[in-house]
Every structure is written in structure tokens, then in C-alpha cells.
């Protein structure tokens, strides 16, 4: 579903590459946590998967599209097969919940009939029935993120990219969002989630890809936030003290 091969990304004016020869393969239906300190390359990797940016070298394939060579007029059609949510929700404050979701369908030219059917369905799915006519400013953070999730999945994407979706939420609310993401994943959508939230990663025991200084430091199935002794696929040897100091204090 997502295949990243030998990707290096060097931003102008920076001495160290943001991504250094990274290779990663994500299967259809996977649920992957992308963890690592700020500046470790998580966001650069997400941007490449969204085709917000292209790598300096290497190849990125998402849903069968070669994102290095894709012509710019095809990018919008690629993004329609992809859902994205962010830490800051990115809702339109002047539109209601239903209008926010409908907007994303209107701008890709879906019919009014389809929108009238799909929007209430997806709002029910994320648990926002009865709040369709509220403005985002009247909702709690968790509810706003649900709206953003509804918008991301209303077009039934094959891949959902979530960039720290619980970053602005308290643990109880995060819990609800994670339950929702798991349900979306169970319905067949591949989910890639970048996060700093140690509790969530430890509890869900999904595949964990840990980035450090632009490289993949560890890629482990059914793992927690910190590398454990039962680690089955160590990528390279590491220093416990360094790792702990990062994982406790590394959050920006």
C-alpha cells in the first residue's frame, strides 16, 4: 500500500538530511505508529506520503502511484484516495459540522444527492449525530477532531494519515479518537499515525516505527513506545539511557 525505498530528503540550508536513506513498507490494512522526537523526520515522511513534497533521492509509492514522478494534474486525484487529519483539526470556523464535511465532497465535484446521503452516515459513524448544525467553535476538542476524522473518511479512503491527532486532547478524549481510528482500520483502511503519546502506543500494541535523526531506528510489530527486551527485529544497537532521556523529555 505504501512503499518507501532509500529515501533521502535534504532541505536547503540544512547540513543534516531530514531523512537519510529510509526504506519502509506498509501493507494494506496495517495500523502503524510513527514515533520519534521532534526533528526526527516523522513529519517529513508524512509530507512525502501526502505528496506535499518530493524526496531528494529514492522512491515513494502510495496506492500504486509513484509520487516522485506523478504529474501535478494527477495529484488532486491521488489525494482523493487518501484521508488526512492533523493535530489542529483544520476545520472551517464559519461552516457547521455538516457543512465542513460536505465542503470536502463539494470541492471534488460530488453530487448533492451523494452528499446528502454520505454526510449524515459518516457523522453517525464518528458519533456526532445531533451535532450536524453546530459550529466548530461550539464543540469540544475531541468533537472537533471527530469532525476532522469524518471529513477525512467520508470519501472512503484506502489510507488514512494522522499527524498527531491526539496532540491537543486530554487522555480520556484521546481514548475515544483512538477507538474510532481502530474501527476505521478494522473496516480495511490503512492507518499511519504519527504520535508522541506514549500511553496510546503502549496500550494498542500495534506496529511501531521509530525515527531518530532522519533514520528508522526500529520497526517492530505489536510493540510499545519504548524498545523492549523481547524486541524481535532490532535495527541497530542502541543506548538505553539516551533513549529514555529522549522519550521522557523529547516532546517539543
Amino acid at each position, binding site marked *: 500500500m505504501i512503499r518507501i525505498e532509500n529515501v533521502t530528503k535534504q532541505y536547503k540550508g540544512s547540513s543534516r538530511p531530514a531523512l537519510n536513506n529510509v526504506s519502509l513498507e506498509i501493507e494494506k490494512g496495517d495500523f502503524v505508529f510513527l514515533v520519534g522526537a521532534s526533528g526526527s523526520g516523522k513529519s517529513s515522511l508524512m509530507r512525502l506520503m501526502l505528496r506535499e513534497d518530493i524526496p531528494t533521492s529514492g522512491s515513494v509509492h502510495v496506492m500504486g502511484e509513484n509520487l516522485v514522478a506523478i504529474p*501535478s*494534474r494527477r*495529484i*488532486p*486525484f*491521488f*489525494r*482523493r*484516495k*487518501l484521508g*488526512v487529519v492533523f493535530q489542529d483539526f*483544520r476545520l*472551517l470556523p464559519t461552516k457547521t459540522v455538516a457543512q465542513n464535511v460536505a*465542503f*470536502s465532497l*463539494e*470541492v*471534488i*465535484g460530488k453530487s*448533492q444527492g451523494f452528499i446528502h446521503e454520505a454526510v449524515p452516515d459518516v457523522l453517525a459513524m464518528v458519533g456526532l449525530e445531533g451535532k450536524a448544525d453546530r459550529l466548530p467553535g461550539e464543540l469540544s476538542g475531541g468533537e472537533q477532531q471527530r469532525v476532522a476524522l469524518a*471529513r477525512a473518511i467520508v*470519501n472512503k479512503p484506502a489510507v488514512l494519515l494522522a499527524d498527531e491527532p491526539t496532540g491537543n486532547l486530554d487522555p480520556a478524549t484521546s481514548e475515544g479518537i483512538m477507538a474510532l481510528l481502530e474501527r476505521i482500520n478494522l473496516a480495511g483502511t490503512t492507518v499511519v499515525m504519527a504520535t508522541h503519546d506514549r500511553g496510546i502506543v503502549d496500550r494498542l500494541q500495534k506496529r511501531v516505527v521509530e525515527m531518530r535523526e532522519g533514520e528508522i531506528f526500529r520497526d517492530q510489530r505489536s510493540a510499545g513506545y519504548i524498545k523492549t527486551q523481547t524486541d524481535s527485529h532490532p535495527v541497530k544497537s542502541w543506548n538505553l539511557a539516551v533513549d529514555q532521556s529522549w522519550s521522557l523529555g523529547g516532546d517539543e
Partner: protein
Amino acid sequence: MRFGFVMGEIGHGLRRNVSMVISVILVTFISLTFVGTASLLQLQIGQMKNYWYDRAQVAVYLCTEVSPGDVCPQGEASGDLKTSIEEKLKSSVLQPYIKEYFFENHKQAYDKFQEQFAGNSVAKYVTPNQLNETFWVSLKDPSKSQIITESFSGVAGVEEVRDQRSYLDQIFNILNAASLAAVGIAALMLVSAALLISTTIRLSAFSRRREIGIMRLVGASNFYIQLPFILEGVVAATIGSALAAGAVLSVVQFFVQGYLATKLPFTSFVNLGDGLLVAPALIAAGILLSAVASGFAIRRYLRI
């Protein structure tokens, strides 16, 4: 493509920066009015040239008793000289170029003078003998007056050969300069209109950057994202150019036809038909200008 959605977006954008939109309307209005006036002036010049050049004659003025001695040493042109001049006009060399000619004697020249200067004190002092007898020559091709001038300059009994077009050319030069000035002003204003449109569109895009970000994220096509902005510029400029077209048409109808044409009844002026030729061109120019300016602005603002 959902028509209602695009229309809603345009209306939203136009309402959001009303003052900029009004300035776009005014600038396109004024600049295109200049363009329209300049093109009408050109049409007018063309029309007058056609009319007057066709009627312009070459005058072969004959010597009188008061002509200066250096060109007319023999004084008043004698009957023999007149006959030889007329024979030259009839000769096979000049005949192919000449449509017709007629002779104007002292009496006819005097009558015409009295008519033209009626009420002027000059009319009282002038005597028929002071006015030139003249061969008025109409040419088949008025631009070939050179042939007559060369044939008769310096011939005995001829005081001067004069092409009436030389008087007309002065008038046309003035009109031409006026229309060129109008075109120059119009060009400057069109540049500022284009810059103003692109600034307005960029401002509009900036105030809607959140929407644009989401549209890009969910995979709206570039065309769909850009269209409302381009149409926004086009709508504003179309209003301005429609006003300009209206202004040009009313100048033709009320000033040219309603005032000038009644004051100068023997001159042919541009009419509403000419105005109706210019007006759609103005609107088309306004639409094209704004589409290009706003398209360029939004393309630079929105990179994928």
C-alpha cells in the same frame, strides 16, 4: 463541476473585499472608456479621411495683376496662357489621372468669396480682379496630386499649385495626436487595472487560505480551486467594462449625434452603429484582461 457552489464562492469573495472590487470596477471602467474613445476617434478620422480626401481637389491658381512679380513676371495670365494650361490638362500624359476639372473665373471666385466671408469686413475691400482664376482639378486617385503639382509649378501664368489635402492633413494630425494620447493614457491605466486585479485576487486568496488548504488536502483539482478566484476578477472587470461600453455609447448618441452632428450638419460623424462595434470589443477586452491577470495571480499564489 457544481455551478451553485462556484457561484456561492464568487459571491462570498466579492462581498469579502468590496472596496477592492469597487476600485477594480472603477479602474477598468475608466481605462476602457479611454480605449473606447480612442478607437471611436480613429474611426472618426478614417471616416473623415474617406469623405474629404475623395472631395479634395488640386487648385491651379493662375496669375492675377496683384500676384508677386517673381512668379508672375507677365502679370495677369493671358487668354493664350489659359488655353495652353487647359490643353496640358487635356493632354494624354495627364488625362489618365484626372477625373474632371473646371475653370473658375474672377466673377465666380468673387461670388464664392463673398458667400464665404459674408459679414466680414474683408468682403468689402476685395475686388474680383484680386482673386485668382483657378483650374480646379479632381483626381482619380487623390493621393497622386504630385503629378499635377510637378506639371504646373513654374509654368508661365500659374501662380501656385495647391493640394487641398495639405490643409486636411493638419487637422488629421491633430486628431491623430489626440487619439494617440488617449491610447497612451489607456495603456497606462490598463496596466494599473491588471495589477490591481491581481492584487485583489491575491488578497482574496489570502483571506481564504484556510479553505484553499483544505481543498488541496481533500483533492480538489487546481481548476476547481482557481476558478472562483478567476471568475471573481472577471465579474468585477466585466461590470467595469460594461460601464465603459455604456459610457462610449452614450457619448456617441448624446454628444456626437445629438450635439456635434446638429452643429456641423455637413460632416459625417461616427454613429451608434460604430459605437455598437466598439462596445462589445471593450467588454471582451475587459474579460480577457481580468481573466489573464487573475489567472496569473492565483497561479503564482497556489502552487501544489
